[in-house]
């Protein structure tokens, strides 16, 4: 039985339908990512699971029991907010203790959880004295101490310094694995979702476009939108090919002939922009060390059939 | 009953009972006739409002407008440089700001009385001038229109300084540097850049000063001593000595109408600019 089940959930606001007939399941112990551009309805979906909005239609269940109309304080679901929402008048320890008053049978102790997130040494600090990363850890501890069935994370990396993000990504993933708690995270960053999640659900304009493991979504996207959102795509005659899947050589007779129109140096790789004889452009991504092409060179481009993407929509 | 109902109930009851209902009764009284023993009763009539067309009352209304306008203008002229000073202060801004608002926190009555103490015939100023031999008789500094204006300006100056300060505080310092870079001297920068940008603050301050001045009672009463009668004094008089409640009620409604009209105009104008009133 999936730990979280969302069935046919719809939410309308005056003027537009934010969430349109969305259904998905989340299995126990997974890190599930809800991915999409801003305004796609992912945050609204999150808020409906947390209990801050009520669906106009559909059902949400946790471990089989429906929670659709329950208030937030009666759900065994907890949220880590985008700006952490730590109570400023309480210390870190008091923040973590906050929910225990209403959940006396919680499995963990405050100290154990603080150690888990490595904030034991700052337990007596106030939120204003903590850095962004530290605040996030306290927010995590505050929710995890209550042993929720599902932990919701709203854009967990958005408020952090960009150079911290890669590190925190790893830490969050490790934390999820170690605690075994089911994480459902909302993000607009496809790199985050692909690198962290066991399952990714892509949303667009209120609808769910595709759900599945990251690699499956990347290699076999079901719609053009998913293909384009997860990475760059070359569309040639209705078929999609990712730039890194395009092979380039100076001679031979594989694939098609084209002329290099631009070379862009990106550090570890090079983008070779070429014009196929037909008047269609193609971008090939080649590791730096393998590229010595110049503008104007005649090259041949080809790709394997298994690297072709034929989305349904 | 939802929790929200109970949260709002005390306030709603208070306002309904002690604000709305009284206003309704005032409107009703304004249409009745003065009773034989000072009360009021039938017949229903428009006469109380008609009486306001009498030039005597027209004069009082005009005088009230004039004094309120003069006080507001003085507050503007005197308050703007002070607000500018505080906004430009490098340090201890809260101190300078606090020194402006502190008098406001103490009793209005006491502050008015302080000026009476200074301006009376036997007051400090006259005593000093007489003692120095500069005058032979005490100057009539109190109990006239000028004293009323002085009292109003003194009382409401903070209401002008604070909104102007709030706008000046948010002013982009780069604008001033740009003006100087283009050749404007400090005084010209103030005149051509700062003052125009401070207009919303000046407008807000003007409303905050003009409206109370228009309906003032205590200042004209104490500082004007019965020689400077404004709308507020006439209204109060109807309910005490003159015992003409219906007329006082009509006058109150008219004053309310004038105030609301002024505010409506002010709100409309500020809706275009950013900031607004309160």
């Amino acid at each position: 039985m999936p730990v979280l089940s969302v069935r046919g959930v719809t939410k309308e606001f005056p003027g537009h339908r934010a969430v349109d007939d969305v259904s998905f399941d989340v299995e126990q112990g997974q890190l599930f990512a809800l991915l999409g551009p801003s305004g796609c309805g992912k945050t609204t979906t999150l808020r409906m699971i947390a209990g801050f909005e009520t669906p106009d239609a559909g059902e949400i269940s946790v471990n089989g029991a429906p929670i659709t109309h329950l208030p937030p304080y009666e759900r065994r679901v907890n949220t880590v907010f985008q700006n952490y929402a730590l109570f400023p008048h309480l210390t870190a320890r008091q923040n973590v203790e906050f929910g225990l008053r209403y959940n006396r049978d919680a499995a963990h102790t405050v100290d154990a959880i603080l150690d888990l997130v490595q904030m034991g040494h700052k337990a007596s600090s106030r939120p204003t004295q903590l850095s962004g990363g530290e605040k996030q850890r306290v927010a995590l501890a505050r929710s995890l101490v209550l042993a929720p069935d599902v932990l919701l994370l709203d854009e967990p990396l958005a408020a952090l310094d960009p150079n911290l993000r890669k590190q925190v990504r790893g830490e969050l993933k490790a934390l999820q694995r170690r605690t075994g708690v089911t994480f459902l995270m909302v993000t607009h960053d496809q790199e985050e979702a692909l690198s962290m999640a066991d399952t990714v659900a892509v949303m667009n304009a209120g609808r769910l476009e595709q759900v599945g493991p990251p690699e499956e979504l990347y290699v076999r996207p079901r719609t053009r939108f998913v293909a384009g959102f997860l990475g760059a795509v070359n569309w040639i005659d209705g078929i999609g090919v990712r730039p890194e899947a395009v092979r380039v050589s100076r001679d031979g007779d594989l694939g098609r002939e084209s002329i290099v129109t631009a070379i862009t140096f990106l550090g570890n790789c090079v983008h070779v922009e070429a014009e196929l004889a037909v008047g269609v452009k193609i971008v090939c991504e080649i590791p730096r060390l393998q590229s010595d092409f110049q503008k104007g060179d005649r090259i041949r481009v080809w790709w394997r059939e298994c690297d072709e993407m034929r989305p349904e929509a | 009953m939802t929790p929200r109902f109970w949260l709002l109930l005390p306030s709603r009851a208070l306002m309904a009972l002690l604000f709305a209902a009284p206003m309704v009764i005032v409107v009703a009284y304004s249409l009745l006739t003065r009773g034989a023993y000072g009360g009021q009763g039938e017949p229903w009539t428009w006469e109380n409002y008609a009486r306001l067309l009498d030039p005597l009352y027209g004069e009082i209304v005009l005088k009230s407008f004039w004094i309120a306008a003069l006080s507001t203008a003085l507050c503007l002229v005197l308050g703007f440089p002070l607000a500018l000073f505080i906004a430009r202060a490098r340090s201890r801004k809260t101190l300078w700001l606090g020194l402006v608002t502190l008098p406001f926190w103490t009793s209005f009555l006491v502050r008015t009385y302080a000026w009476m103490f200074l301006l009376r015939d036997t007051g400090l100023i006259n005593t000093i001038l007489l003692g120095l031999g500069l005058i032979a008789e005490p100057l009539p500094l109190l109990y006239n229109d000028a004293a009323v204006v002085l009292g109003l300006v003194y009382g409401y100056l903070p209401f002008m300084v604070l909104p102007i300060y709030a706008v000046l505080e948010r002013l982009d310092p780069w604008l001033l540097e740009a003006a100087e870079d283009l050749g404007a001297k400090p005084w010209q920068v103030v005149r051509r850049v700062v003052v125009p940008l401070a207009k919303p603050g000046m407008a807000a301050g003007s409303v905050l000063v003009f409206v109370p001045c228009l309906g003032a009672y205590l200042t004209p009463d104490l500082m004007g001593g019965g020689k400077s009668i404004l709308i507020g004094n006439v209204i109060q008089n109807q309910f005490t000595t003159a015992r003409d409640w219906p007329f006082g009620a009509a006058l109150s409604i008219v004053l309310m109408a004038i105030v609301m009209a002024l505010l409506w105009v002010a709100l409309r104008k500020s809706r275009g600019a950013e900031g607004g009133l309160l």
Partner: protein
Amino acid sequence: MKRGLALYAAVAYAFLHLPLLILAAFSFNSSKYTVWEGLSLVWYRALWDDARLLESAWNSVLIGVLATIAATAAGTLAAYATWKRRARWLEGSLYLSLVTPEVVTGVSLLVFYQWVFRFLDVRLGLHTVVAAHIMFSLAYVVVVVMARLKTMDRSLEEAALDLGATEWQTFLRVTLPQLAPAIGTAALLVFAISFDDYVITSLVAGVDSETLPMVIYTMARKGVSPSVNAISTIITVSIGIMTLTAERWRRA
């Protein structure tokens, strides 16, 4: 220009503060007249013997405390409810009460009370004054508390709900601590306004319930007694100290 501005500011501040300072200085003058004769506390002692003044001062304090408690409580709850969802009628009437001239407010209350007294066996007194003070202070509390609420992070309340607290528990444990300084400021404001009110109070107080401003007014009108200087100084210093202490406490 900077020097000119500073000079002007000095003059302006003198204008604002000198009258009160002079008043305070002369409250220690041993002479009854405006000629300085020597330091003395005679007028302060005279206050102590003035029964009418003492009684009115006590009335003002009592009214002030009652009005403060009631208006601050009702206003805070109203501001909170309105912050969550607009309450058009209440907001409109509160705003209107702020801009209504005091004379009109006082007169309307007097008229209302007299009309009510036809049906109830009540007369004007302390209770009518307290009720009036609560009403006209309400808007101030709502404005001050609402200003603070608008800067408060809404997700704090959501976090509390998420962690298991009900709406009421959330208000007590999370929102109220955030509001405490604003509520303190509002309470002080109500007390200061109530203590100082003359116009409305004089219209609805009736014969037996004089407040301090009413007594001071009568004395000021007569123009002679220097004990007005003394009581004025006491009031100014007291409220000044209260304000400064509140500011200190708010910063901490």
